[in-house]
């Protein structure tokens, strides 16, 4: 199981991976994403290619960990801020 830092994850996403694009499809995250410059986010989304579906899985909020299940991979990233955003979106 790959272990990623938040920075590494964001770097990977900006390099063309689909993770952020899929995550921002969640209603709560969309609101968060709108906090960023709208034109940048839309540009990122339009450039992103979601080759296969992706699921983000938060097992325990306190850990700050999110598992991303995509293809036959599981990628775990440590991102308490994103975990909080997901929890807020799920309320």
């Amino acid at each position: 199981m790959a272990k990623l830092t938040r920075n590494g994850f964001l770097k990977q996403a900006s390099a063309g991976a689909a993770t952020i694009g899929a995550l921002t499809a969640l209603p709560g995250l969309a609101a968060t994403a709108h906090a960023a410059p709208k034109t940048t986010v839309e540009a990122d989304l339009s450039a992103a290619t979601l080759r296969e579906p992706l699921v983000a899985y938060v097992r325990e909020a306190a850990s700050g960990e999110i598992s991303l299940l995509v293809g036959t991979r599981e990628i775990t990233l440590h991102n308490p801020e994103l975990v909080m955003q997901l929890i807020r979106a799920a309320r």
Partner: protein
Amino acid sequence: MSSHREAPEISKDPVADNTDFYAFVSPDMQNTVTLISNYIPFEAPDGGPNYYEFGEDVLYEIHIDNTGDAVADVTYQFRFHTEVRNPNTFLYNTGPITSLDSPNWNRRQFYTVTRVKNGKSTVLGSHLASPPCNVGPRSTPDYAMLAGAAVHNLGGISVFAGQRLEGFYIDVGAIFDLGDLRPFQNLHLIPTPATLAVDSTKAVNVHSIAIRVPISHLTRDGSTPTNQADSRAVIGGWCTASRQKMRMMGDMRMSGNMHLGPWTQVSRMAHPLINEVVVPMGKKDFWNTTAPKDDAQFVAGAQHPELAGLLPVLYPKVFPNLAAYTAPRADLVAILMTGIPAGIVPGFQNFTGKTLADMLRLNVAIPPAAKPSPAGVVGGDLAGYPNGRRVFDDVFTIELRAIAGVTIPLVDKTFTPDAAASKVSDNLTPAADRYLSTFPYLGTPKDGFNTPSN
């Protein structure tokens, strides 16, 4: 059952529920080993219109360890996909299926075989056809021909994946009714007159994955050993089924269900009846997720099997010596978890070292017997269970007698087995047509027309 519906969770997932595992030197091609893993327990032959098939979302694997560490050195993987000719009919077939490419066969399965060795994956064959299920004389008029056409030769390796007649025989309705053995039930704690046993599985089918490979593909140095005392002659095998970690249900934009994440083992099997009767209820689901290399955590189940304690209770005054025996069962640990060392049974060993692991250990240097005995090693046939396992071995009786104490003297000469220990059995003899003499060795499945479920 051997490993049919043996744990709570996997009993709800038949296509991933491995029911039996066989490993034996092929009787008609003695430089090869045949490995068979079965799935889908208790297939009623008339179970249409959606007849049985392998799971497209399941990774089926057969593993071989040839270094004694209970870690796979060679793995064969099988992945299936289904093709539907006409989605606008409910019919499995729209006329007689007379060939594997028959236009009348509406729902077909194909598979890919991959070998993983030294971390390298090699596709051995792809788009290999499975046969249909044996529907009946109008739909599958020459089933043996169809099944024969579904044996694929992959450059010295033979494979078959499809429906077969169940090979494992047992009076399951009796044994799970508080350990009843009909021929001896007059001696049971709740007695009734003795009767003949019932072969519960004589008319049910399974789905088999069978592969016959040269022995040299499985041994650690690529040799074909001829000396049974040579440690290189012993291999350990087991099978597993895995599912992806995540399943999303009902997203029709994604063709219904969606599977994501790494493969996660949901079923495994080597010796018959291990997760069935040796592993306790609270650990069965967990056991199915674990690897043989970690089986030391389950050794207590072999050292002090619950069934050995139950027999003297269920059959009062029949097993006094067994009841008085309290030492850890070193005989069962050897048979099930390490293999039998040299010097215990003359002319035989299948010891893989001290690593405690549920692996089916096969000494490939021991040739098939001219007149095989279903009783295997305890019946004087060193080519039979627990030296691997052949399709016709009477593993229920062998294991029952072992648990009842007949094998204790192999490791403890002071013990005298009870007289009944060498007699307990359901005394079943499978019909002659239950098996084939050639690959894939399990018999032609019962057809749905002639074999109603009652």
